[in-house]
Each structure stands twice: as structure tokens, then as C-alpha cells.
């Protein structure tokens, strides 16, 4: 190898090291860490939402009078046909089982369908257990209608909530009911306030009323929602109802743009994410009674619902001085509020009431679990979208860990839901708890504070800072390389030189000739 070739090789090595090792290492070391999020997997979860879920609810069928040996299979077939007839967003089915013995059944924890021989056909759902009674007469037995009655009762009435949510093709209806309801949260704070428009002394028997009427409800709803409750008497706040007095012919429709809830909603430190309010408002004596309130002497108030906020109980007349609201006043207010609260919690829709609390709450657990799964999946999808849209944003390891934890939790929930051998009340409770956890972990992954703060450091900035180093190095390496490549070998150079020399000699000869002419 000649010297020149050696030099060329060295220059090439420099250039190759610079481009193939140096630049990538520099890039790697100065690039922010972005954990590889499983975005395809998350995308597929979002796209085929619930495709891997098949909710199975076991139902025990028993018959008190007749013994039908094949009724379980017949009901099962009818139920399957009914559910399959309406393709919904989610696969679900009922598993009709035969109880091993009647004593084993506990209608408070298991869904039980009892076939009762009666003079008419019909059904009834108990409000203190998860039992559905289907009444049939002998004619129905003869025409073999009992399985169909039973299946229809189960699907369309006992499991009406599932039928509504799972077997409904579009999500429109879903959104309509959630307009009023707060997003589901296992912990809800309830703030009950007595507001008076002026500073006159008032009191209320709220403690005894709550203990008598609300404590049992808290206990009952404990599996799905835990309440923390505070009550307060607020003076000088009539939610701006006094302004209505100046309006011409005010009606309750004006409330929407007059009521000022900011004072009640701000300056609070609730630890719970979801807050419901009940405000019992008395107008101030100065502004007088509110004519538009449809009140009677026994019910001097009217209740209004504020979507996702709570209920307003507006009284027609100001409260007399030194008066104490008794239980007689507060109990109907509480009843009314409890009914509205089921709507706020999403337990019942506008028209329905909670006449069958056990089955409704059981269904609510399933619906809430699946809604949580959807919510979490949306959050994860948003996270991957965010990570894609901001290529400069760091994605810390912790985010990936949380995403993985969330996906594992999801699998765990799906496994629970899909397992037909389970399905007791505790399963739904566990699934709901896990799904709450899932939502929480998803949100933790999304709201990682390390992710956004690095976003203000653009790529151009990096180039600008490193240009004083990269510039000289690049110039030196590549000009050096080009120069050494263009340099000719010594033998070639010599040949060139001799050529040039001969040319130069020719020139000299011309000069000599000119001089000779002189």
C-alpha cells in the first residue's frame, strides 16, 4: 500500500467513524428517552372494544310447583335467541343453571328465577333481593310458552340495564343518560347546604335526618360508591336568586342563567374526585318570595336538577327568623334528593325509579365496570396519540410501567368477566374494584408530569447548541477526505510535472527567439 493510499484509508476511517459511530452516538445521547408504548395493542383494544369480553351472568331457575326437567335448556335456548337477535356492542349471555338444592340458593347474592303457578301470566322483580318471579298458568304450560316468558322476563326486565347498554347498537342512548350523571367514581363527596339570602339565624335537624334516612343508603350503596358527607349553613348566599326579583315575570326557565353556583363550588378542598351537591335555598327577606316556585303549604319548595352538579331545592318564601327546619321538612327533601341522586350516579335514567334496587345495582356494577374499561382504553389511546404527536416529548419509563400495569389489570378484569364459573356478587365487586383501579392507573400514566415539561426543548435548539462542535468537525473531516482523495499518486504527479516542465521549456524557447530577433 502506498503512503497515499494509507492516508486515504485513514481519512476514510475518520469519515466513517464520524458518520457511522459519532453522529449516531451523539444523537442517541442527546435524544430524550421515549419508552416504547404498545400503541398497536392499545389501538386494537380501542378499535375492537370489548371484542375479547363475553359477560356471563349465571341465573338459577327453580320451580316451586311443577318439576320441569328440561326447562333450563329451553330457557337457555330462548335467552340465547333473544340476545342474538339484537346484536349489540358487547357479547353477553345468561347462563341458566339448575340449583343443586333449594337451600343453597341465596336470592340476595345470586340471580334466581322462580316459576310460580298462578291464575295469570306475569312477572315481578323483588326489591329486596335478586329474585325474579315468573307467574304462569296451566295454559302456558300446555302451549309450551313458559320458557319464552321466562327468557323474555329475564332479558328485557331483570337485565334491562344490560339489555339497554350492551345490546344496543349505537351509543347515542348512552350519552343521553350520562348528560345528568357524573362520571362514575367509587368515592363521591356529598355536600348538603342550607342557603339563606340574608344573615338571619336558622338551624336544621340535619344530623338526625341524615342518620335516619341517609346512613342506611350509604351502607346499601357501599359496594359501588362510598359517600363522604358534609353539611353547612351558608348565610348571605341565595345563589343570585334575588336578581330574579328584578326580572319581568320570572319563570323557572330563567333559573338556568341566573343561578350562580360558583360560591358553593369554589373554595372547597374535597379529596374525592366526584362531588354532588344538594342546596336548600331560601330567598332573602328583602327580595321576597319567588312567585314562579310551584309550592304548597306542605311542600313549600320545588326541586331542580343541575346536570353533573346536584340538586337545588328552592323555597318559595324566605325563612322566618330563628326557625329550625324539622325532620318533617327535611325528610321529603332527602327522599326527593335520593331519587335524583340515583340519576346523578347513573343508576337510573330519567323516567325510571329504583324499585328494584338489588338487580339494578348489580347491573350497574357490570355497566360501570365496562364503562371503566372503555374510559381507561380511551385514556391509553390518548396517551399513545399524545406520544405520537409530540416526537420531542419524553416518555419516561414510569409511564410505560403504568401502561403495562393497566393492560395487565385489564386482562385480569376480562378474565374475571369471561369466566362463566364465577359470577357471584363478589366477582362483580372485584371486577368493579379492579376496573376503578384500572382507570386510576391509566390516568396516572397519562398525567405524568415528566412528560410535558420537556416539550419546550425543540430539536432546533439542540442543533444550535452543538453546532460549534459539529460544524468544525464535519468541515475538517470531509474537506480532509476530499483533499486526500483528489491528491494524485507520486508517480502520476511526476509524470504531470515532466509534462508541465516541457511546456515551460517551450515557453522559454519562445522568449529566447524573441530576444534573438532583437
Amino acid at each position, binding site marked *: 500500500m502506498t503512503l497515499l493510499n494509507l492516508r486515504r484509508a485513514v481519512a476514510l476511517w475518520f469519515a466513517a467513524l464520524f458518520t457511522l459511530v459519532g453522529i449516531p452516538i451523539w444523537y442517541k445521547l442527546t435524544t430524550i428517552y421515549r419508552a416504547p408504548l404498545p400503541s398497536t395493542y392499545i389501538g386494537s383494544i380501542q378499535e375492537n372494544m370489548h371484542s375479547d369480553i363475553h359477560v356471563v351472568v349465571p341465573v338459577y331457575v327453580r320451580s316451586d310447583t311443577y318439576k320441569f326437567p328440561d326447562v333450563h335448556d329451553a330457557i337457555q335456548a330462548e335467552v340465547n335467541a333473544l340476545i342474538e337477535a339484537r346484536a349489540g356492542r358487547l357479547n353477553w349471555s345468561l347462563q341458566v343453571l339448575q340449583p343443586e338444592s333449594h337451600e343453597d340458593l341465596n*336470592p*340476595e347474592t345470586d340471580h334466581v328465577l322462580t316459576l310460580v303457578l298462578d291464575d295469570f301470566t306475569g312477572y315481578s322483580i323483588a326489591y*329486596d333481593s335478586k329474585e325474579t318471579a315468573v307467574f304462569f298458568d296451566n295454559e302456558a304450560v300446555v302451549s309450551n310458552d313458559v320458557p319464552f316468558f321466562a327468557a323474555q322476563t329475564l332479558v328485557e326486565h331483570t337485565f334491562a340495564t344490560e339489555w339497554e347498554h350492551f345490546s344496543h347498537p349505537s351509543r347515542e342512548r348512552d350519552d343521553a343518560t350520562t348528560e345528568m350523571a357524573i362520571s362514575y367514581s367509587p368515592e363521591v363527596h356529598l355536600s348538603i347546604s342550607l342557603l339563606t339570602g340574608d*344573615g338571619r339565624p336558622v338551624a336544621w335537624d340535619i344530623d338526625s335526618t341524615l*342518620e335516619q*334516612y341517609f346512613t342506611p343508603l350509604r351502607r346499601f350503596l357501599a359496594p359501588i360508591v362510598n359517600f363522604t358527607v358534609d353539611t353547612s349553613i351558608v*348565610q348571605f348566599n341565595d345563589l343570585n336568586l334575588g336578581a330574579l326579583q328584578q326580572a319581568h315575570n320570572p319563570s323557572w326557565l330563567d333559573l338556568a342563567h341566573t343561578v350562580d353556583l360558583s360560591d358553593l363550588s369554589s373554595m372547597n*378542598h374535597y379529596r374525592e374526585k366526584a362531588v354532588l351537591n344538594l342546596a336548600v335555598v331560601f330567598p332573602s327577606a328583602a327580595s321576597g318570595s319567588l312567585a314562579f316556585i310551584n309550592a304548597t303549604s*306542605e311542600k313549600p319548595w320545588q326541586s331542580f336538577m343541575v346536570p353533573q352538579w346536584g340538586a337545588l331545592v328552592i323555597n318559595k318564601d324566605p325563612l322566618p327568623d330563628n326557625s329550625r327546619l324539622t325532620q318533617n321538612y327535611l325528610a321529603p327533601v332527602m327522599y326527593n334528593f335520593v331519587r335524583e341522586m340515583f340519576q346523578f350516579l347513573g343508576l337510573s335514567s330519567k323516567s325510571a325509579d329504583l324499585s328494584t334496587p338489588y338487580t339494578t345495582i348489580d347491573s350497574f356494577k357490570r355497566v360501570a365496570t365496562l364503562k371503566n374499561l372503555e374510559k381507561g382504553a380511551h385514556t391509553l389511546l390518548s396517551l399513545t396519540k399524545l406520544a405520537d404527536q409530540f416526537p420531542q416529548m419524553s416518555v419516561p419509563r414510569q409511564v410505560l410501567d403504568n401502561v403495562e400495569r393497566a393492560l395487565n389489570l385489564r386482562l385480569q378484569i376480562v378474565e374475571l368477566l369471561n369466566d362463566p364459573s364465577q359470577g357471584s356478587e363478589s366477582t362483580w365487586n372485584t371486577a368493579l374494584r379492579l376496573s376503578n383501579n384500572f382507570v386510576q392507573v391509566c390516568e396516572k400514566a397519562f398525567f405524568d408530569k415528566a412528560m410535558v415539561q420537556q416539550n419546550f426543548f425543540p430539536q432546533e435548539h439542540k442543533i444550535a447548541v452543538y453546532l460549534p462542535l459539529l460544524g468544525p468537525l464535519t468541515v475538517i473531516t470531509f474537506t480532509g477526505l476530499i483533499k486526500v482523495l483528489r491528491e494524485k499518486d507520486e508517480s502520476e504527479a511526476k509524470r504531470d510535472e515532466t509534462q508541465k516542465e516541457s511546456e515551460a521549456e517551450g515557453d522559454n524557447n519562445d522568449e529566447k527567439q524573441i530576444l534573438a530577433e532583437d
Partner: protein
Amino acid sequence: MRSLAGAFFWIVLFCAVITATTSIDEDLNIPNEAETAGNAYQTCSAECLSSASEEISTDGLELTDEEIKVASMGNTSDSLSLYESSESIKYPFHEQLTLRPLPRSFMFASFEFLMRSNNFTVGEKESDFNAYRHYTVFPKSLSPLLEYTQTRQLHLRFTHGRWDSESWGQLPHEGRKSGGTGVELWAVIEAGSKDDAFHNWISLANSLSGLFCSSINFITAEKTTYPTSYSPLSDESSLPIFNTSNSLFLIRAALANEPICTENLTPFLKLLPTRGRTGISSLLDGHKLFDSNWQSLSLDVETHCNAGKCQYHMEQFIEMVFNVPNSLARADTPIPKPVQESELRCDPTKPHDAWQCFPLPQSRDTKFRLSKLFGRKIIGSSLISEYPSKVCANVTDSWKVFIDVNDALFSTEDNCFTIKYDNEHDLHIESTDTSNVVEPEPIPLFVSRSLTGYGQDSGGLRTVFRNPSNETVEASYFETLPWYMRIYLSSLTMESVDGLEIEDVIQNTYYLPAVDRQRPTHLNFKLLIPPNTSLALSYQFDKALLKYAEYPPDANHGFEIESAVVTVTRPISYELRTSTLLLSLSTPDFSMPYNVIILTSTVMGLAFGTLFNLMVKKLITVEEADSRSSSSTSLKAKLAGILGKIMRTSRKVDVEKKHQ
């Protein structure tokens, strides 16, 4: 028909709830295991229907529990008391306004609000089924905050302005209710460990920051101290511990550069049950309050427990000192204008005409109304409080104070007035000798602190103590310095004209050195200052360099050093604070990092270039180079060639010219 349906619905709902109740209550002992749920439903529905039918027949309205009970017994009652008229409903709230004229036409006004919370049980979880929190006069916004940060005592001070103790005497409440300039916060927090306590403390500071619209969230570990003997707590033995395995931590921080303004007053007023709408708080207006020479907002919450039941006691003070003639003049002409010639009070003993006037000293007569000072009248009393609102004037005989109710003036013996009902009240104050005021309480100790030295790398702190009394004063000097003031305690010296030594004065020293970016210097001296002496303690410090991101934005005037706290324990109990200090640190050129990068890069580029050339370029001897350059086809040679050619052609031309 609709009412019937409504009533039926009510009954069904009622039944549902009640049965739900009973069935859950019975969950534990399961009385009727054999009874099927269906039967229970039937029996209940029968009951409900029967009661419903009775009820519908009477009036068809909603049912209350009372009604149902009555209905099921077969008796109907027409009169229902929705409201019960109590004798009088009173809540534990008390408010009082005290006015005290100070020398040189100043006036001190103190708004005092005391309130107590409802009882709460120790150890009761909020999520317990029968746990309900009730609030009446105690602010709902504060209580959960204290609860989840496990704060047993909370003290917050917003102070601004200078208290002229030389002429005004002692600070109000022996100095216990006013902090140093800026915000001061200290709390007693119950926690299992110091880390837990700190975690709660930060959470408390952040929450208070939102509540009071101030930058309390800037409190971090590097501003937080754990005082050992600072501000003796009212009675330490009475401090409750909810969990016996925990201990109590006293934590303190101050933000000297926090401006106090109207946005801090509004949340203060919102904490009151009257919300600034009635009672003495109706006088408070941000513009007037923050126009004053000195103002202080203070908030103290203490937990008091008795046999498992606890209660928060809260004291709120809003205090100010304003110059009466100035405030009155501003009330008359909000935009300052020169005084009319006719209103000028010239000294008649000196020449005066339209162009010159030697003003007389300020008149000693005064006559004004409270509504002119505050811009508003007192709108009625706080009707819910145990005691009616009170206004007191602490004046001497040369002052006359009347209360104006419906244009009628009344006076009392002790100059204390009770505000009644919802009438508008005003105070009429007049005096023939404004210099005759209640004798100010003597100050046990004067303390002033200042920065010494020059230059940007070091400085000194000098604190002068002066005991004007005839008794030895025992005091504790508490100082917190930021970590970027690196003090040398070894340089502590004392100057005294009376020849006192350090050992005579400093009885005890507690010193916790700062850790960079982690904790401040915590210095506490126990001092004994002999009567009628004055002494100065001084020590030196170095100024540290900060990281470039730690400097405040360009438009700043320096670093505020919070006031030192002096607590006098003998002969009287008194607390005072020095003024804050302004420390200027050397500020680097912030383009420096970029310069450094460029310089380093250039050096690296040079080094690399040398190395690269050494390895890639060909090395030859000097002789070889010379011979090459002579015969080289380099640019130089080419240039020489071209030059030669030009020369030759020009010579040719010359030759031809000669020929011609």
C-alpha cells in the same frame, strides 16, 4: 290523577328505601332465612298499598315519615311543623372592632373575629356510614384541609408596612398576632415521622396558597424550619394527639417577598359567616385597608379536645394603622390637588401672603365619622352570633365618641357600643387634643438588623439590641437564613459600650447549618440583655453562587431575607420582628453557558483538526518541500508563471515600440 300517581310513586320509593334499610340491617343476624324474598315483597306491598290508600284518601300528597307513621296508626294529623320556631339560634361567633388613636394623628383599628367549629369525634373516618361533618360558622373550606394534613394548629400572617414602635408603643396583642413583612406560616402537624409531617406541611401550604390567592406554594424544604423554642405555643400540654403513636411537629416558613393585596383580603372575608355583608366586616374594603401605613391579617386555628370530642377554635384579626388626616383628605379628593388658598393654615408669626406661607403644625382638633374613613357604614349586627357585634374606642377624656343610629347620636360610659339588628350604624369621633391618647405600652426591647459590607462575594449581618428598661430582659432570637448566605458563626462578635462579653449575653445557642438547596440556616440564641444597655451582634457570611435557573427573572431587586423573630419572655411576654433585608447576589451573565459551549467546542475542534492533519497529511522534510515548491505546480508557481508571461508580453511591446 297525577297527584295520585305521584303519591303512589312516593310510597313505592319509600318502601324500597325502608325495606332496603331493614334488610341490610338484618343482614347480620338473618332472622328469616326460610322466608323467600317474594313473600316479603308481597307483604310489604300490601302494607304500602294500605297506607297509600289511606293517605290518598286524606290529601294525596307526598308522605313524610311522620305521616306514614300516623297513617298506619289510623290517625290523621293536619298540622305539620316544617319549621320549628326556636327561642333564638346562636352560633359560636364573636366579632369586635376596636379603635385606638395613636400619637401624631394615627389611628389603629382592629377587627377581631372569633369562631368555633362543630364538634367532631377523634378517630371517626369520613367514610364511616354515620359520619357527617356539619359546618355552621366555621369555614367549610378550612376544616377538611386541617383534617387531611393532620394539622392541630395553624397560624398564618399577612403583614405589610412598618409599625413605628418608637411612637406607637407595643404591637397589638403583645406582637403575637402580627408577622414579619410578607407571609408567615407555622403549624403544628401530627405525624408518625418527620418526613410524613413535611409531606403534610407541603400539602397544607399548597392548599392554603389556593385558598388565600397567594404564593404560599413557594414554601419548600429550603425555606422550612422546625423551630425548637420559637413562639411559645399557648399551652403545649393542651395540644391533642389523635393517634398516640404519632408525635407533633412544629413547622414554620416565611416568604418575605410576598406582596399583600386585596386578593388576600377577599378570601379572608369569605371565611367569615357574615361574608363581609353585615356586622363590622361590612366596613372592610380592600382599597382602604391596603392604603394604610401598616396592616396585618392573621388567622389562628387551634384544636381543642375534651373527652374524644374535638373542636377548632379560630381567631381572625384584620388590623391596620392609618393616618387620619391623610385618609380623610383622600376621601374628599381622591385625586390629590393643591389646597385652596383660603384653606391654607399659615403661621401668623411669620410673613405670609399669596405667594409664601409657613404652615402651622397640624391642628389638634379633629372631627370625623367612621364612614368617611372606611367609605362605608356598619350594616347591622351579625345576627347569628352569640354576642352582638361590638365597636369599642380606646380613648382618653379629650375624645368624644358617639354612635349614630338613624341620625340619632348616643354615647356610653366605656365608649363601647353594641350594634343591634340590621340598622346602619356609624361612629362619630371628635377630639380637642389629638395628641392626648392612651399611653402606649412601653417596649421591652428594640431590635434592628442590617446588612453590612460591600462586594458581591461576602457580607455581614449586624443586629442591634437595645434594652430601654430598668430590668434585665430575657429573650430568644430566632433567625432563618437562606442557604446561599453561608454564615460563619465563628466570626460572631459583640460590640458593646458597657464592655459586655458574648458569654454574658448569649446564654444558649442552637445552630443548624444550612444544606445547599435542602434546608436553611436555623439560628436561635437565648439572650440576657442587662438594663439600659445597647449591644450589637454581628457575623460574616459568604454569598453563594446559584445555578443559573435559580436566579429570579431579570427584573428583580434582589433576594428578600425574612425577618428575625425576637420573643421576650421576661419581664413581660412580647414578640417582635425585625424588618426584612434585601440581599443582592452576584448575577452572572446568562449567555455564559452558551459561550462556554462554543469555546469548548472550538477547542475540541482545534484539537481534532491537529490530530486529523497529523494523521492524514503527508510529512516531508524541509529540503524536499523547498525543491517541490520550486518545481511545483502549486498556485504560487502558476501565479508566478502568469506574472512572467505578462512581463514578457509587455517587454515584447516595448521592443516593438523601439523598432518603430
